């Protein structure tokens, strides 16, 4: 999104219902600010997030995607985030292999008590993505002129 020549990134944050979404709520309760560029999608567990969703977000114009879940060992469903961790590691590996800038995707474990961490993470992520600029590569990957 380009408004008045100032680049504002589009950022999708997938948050698990039990820890990270609650952490985001707590950030709100504590009035811990972060940019409005971040939009949260609630999922039951980080293991519900299909790499397809992340690619789809990029396809539709997202500049950065972040996945937040319960800390390993604290998953509401006991093991969900362990699977999510492996899947995301592999997805990130593939994106990096394809030459996509690192940092466009991120995983962060945020507990329901970590409102401050949630806000800090989002501030940091927005900064990273703003520095990276618009995401063109994934789309351009196929369009060799």
């Amino acid at each position, binding site marked *: 999104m380009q408004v008045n020549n100032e680049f504002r990134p589009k950022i999708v944050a997938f948050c698990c219902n039990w820890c990270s979404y609650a952490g985001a709520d707590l950030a709100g309760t504590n009035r811990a600010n972060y940019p409005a560029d971040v939009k949260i999608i609630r999922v039951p567990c980080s293991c519900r997030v299909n790499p397809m969703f992340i690619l*789809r977000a990029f396809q539709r114009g997202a500049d950065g995607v972040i996945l937040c879940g319960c800390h390993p060992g604290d998953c509401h469903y006991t093991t*969900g985030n362990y699977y999510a961790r492996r899947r995301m590691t592999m997805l990130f590996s593939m994106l990096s292999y394809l030459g996509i800038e690192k940092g466009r995707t991120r995983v962060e474990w945020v507990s329901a008590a970590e409102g401050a961490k949630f806000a800090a993470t989002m501030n940091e992520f927005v900064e990273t993505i703003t520095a990276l600029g618009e995401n063109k590569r994934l789309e351009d990957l196929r369009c060799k002129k």
Partner: protein
Amino acid sequence: MRRIGVFVCHCGTNIAGTVDVKTVAETLGKEPAVVYATDYPYMCSEAGQNIIKDAIKEYKLEGVVVCSCSPRMHEATFRKAVSAAGLNPYLLEVANIREQCSWIHKDMEAGTAKAIVLGRAAIAKVQLNAPLIAGESPVVKRALVIGGGIAGIQTALDIADAGYPVDIVEKEPTIGGKMTQIDKTFPTLDCSSCILTPKMVECAQNENITIYSYSEVEAVTGFVGNFSVKIRRKARFVDENKCTGCGVCTEKCPVKNVPDEYNLGLSNRHAAYIPFAQAIPNVAVLDKNRCIKLTKGKCGLCSTVCSAGAIDYEQKETIVEEKYGAIVAATGYNPIKIDGYDEFAYSQSKDVVTSLEFERILKADGPTDGHLQRLSDGKQPKTIVFVQCVGSRESGSSHGCGKEYCSKICCMYTAKHAMLCREKYPDTDVYVFYIDVRTPGKNYDEFYRRAVEQYGVHYIKGMVGKVAPQADGSLMVQASDLISNEQLHVKADMVVLAAAIEPDKSARPLATMLTASMDTNDFFTEAHAKLRPVESPTAGVFLSGVCQGPKDIPETVAQAGAAASKVIGLLAKDKLSCNPCVAHSNEMMCNGCSSCANVCPYGAITYADKDFSRRQDGSMIRRVASVNEAVCQGCGACTVACPSGAMDLKGFSTSQIMAEVDAICK
């Protein structure tokens, strides 16, 4: 396209302060599907809810979006309101424009823009929401307790007291567990048997309790409210109904040299035996590996002397199948094997014993009839050394059997042992070598202080390096005193090792059967470490006693009662309503590859061969997955593991999430 209504909440100024709610309602009102959009100061209020209810009826809404606080706050409220107006409660989505928008953004323009995007995402999602109906499953009003130690006994008694039938499965011939072997209990020093035996008898007499002794759980299927369990009743070769427990067979049996489990092998029993005098059920057992009749076909003496005619050499093991609504694991613990600790000379000297063996020596029905004696020569020991933390708090164990955790009970029982020695035999010198003394608990530290101050037990901070048996039968104990920083040599007559405790070996296979999770130490995992400490993450499976983590008797009894109350709460319901946001497999697309079942933490997915034959392509039978909706908790791990996309999650379907993604990225 569904007819959607949008309701924007001001939350006083909480939202309206930084989000232009009028603009949000106006803008969202122009979305193609939206037939009605409005705003109101407090949507969650009675009046606010009525606005929603009225609009549903007036505008024939087929989907509702409320832009308000977090769904964690009021989703349930709005679902109820929607439902009251005749719309399926799951045709509602909440856009979180307070916690995740107005409260964190100061700029009105940015906040309003974001609230609109969040609203659009909710509209996109609700378009695809399916009307869901929470399923119901009946509850079998019977509980199973696995393990008949004090944990299992207490749980069973509490459940039975509430009026529900409960079965105890105990793998040994008698219930009672470890507590039967213990002499006195800390910090009150009352006799363990005296407080346990009445409870055991109560179990036997309570008409709601059935005891399956000498039995093991063979298989578990089903789910919360409706478990089906196979119990294997081992053959004891004695008819439980006929045996009076007179004990004549156990006296006449000519095989006398079988190590006695009750005394940890410190004495012998017969091949026909009753584990101990107060055993429940008080029924004899024939040891099938040692009985001459059962191994060689001769003898038969016990049968001749049994006036009740209870001996049955032909008895076979049987399988009992029973249905339960809830299962409690109470499998308990064992001290670790310490043969690997060569430095303590445990395998070399009879006078180096574990703490549990020491209990047996102190107890009146033990191998020494309760007299403090050395097992080697029967002499009364004059100097006793207690070694703490043998195998506990060991990281990177070189012994291969050490545990990283603290076994929790050793400090207290060692203080008890030391005190009992000094009390009964004041001329005994008692040393305790420790890393730390940990005695939190009511009257616990006072108890330990008494051992030190009143009974003059020598507590020395430092570990024992070596125990060397001497030619004169004594034991040379080499240790370091960390406080005075010197090497000590104590000539002892007896050394007692506080061996770490570990979960019973039967726990892991049981956890697999129950699909309950375990930690790396084989302790059962709680559903939540703090808030749900007696529930396993698997619905309907509860935890009682040391199988969940090291604990002493009062804690065990407290947890046993807590587990019982959870069970009672479950059994009190006639039906369980299930979370309808569960996984669902599309059979037409399922490959039957088991990827989903591999990642399911609840064992909710099963497979069956199904006939998909069609006239045009002939016979076609495929293996396909199906989800047990009562077991599935709706995490969605399976949906991503499934390569074909056959597995989807209701309420958070792939297309719903994609629609949200699209709306946000537009």
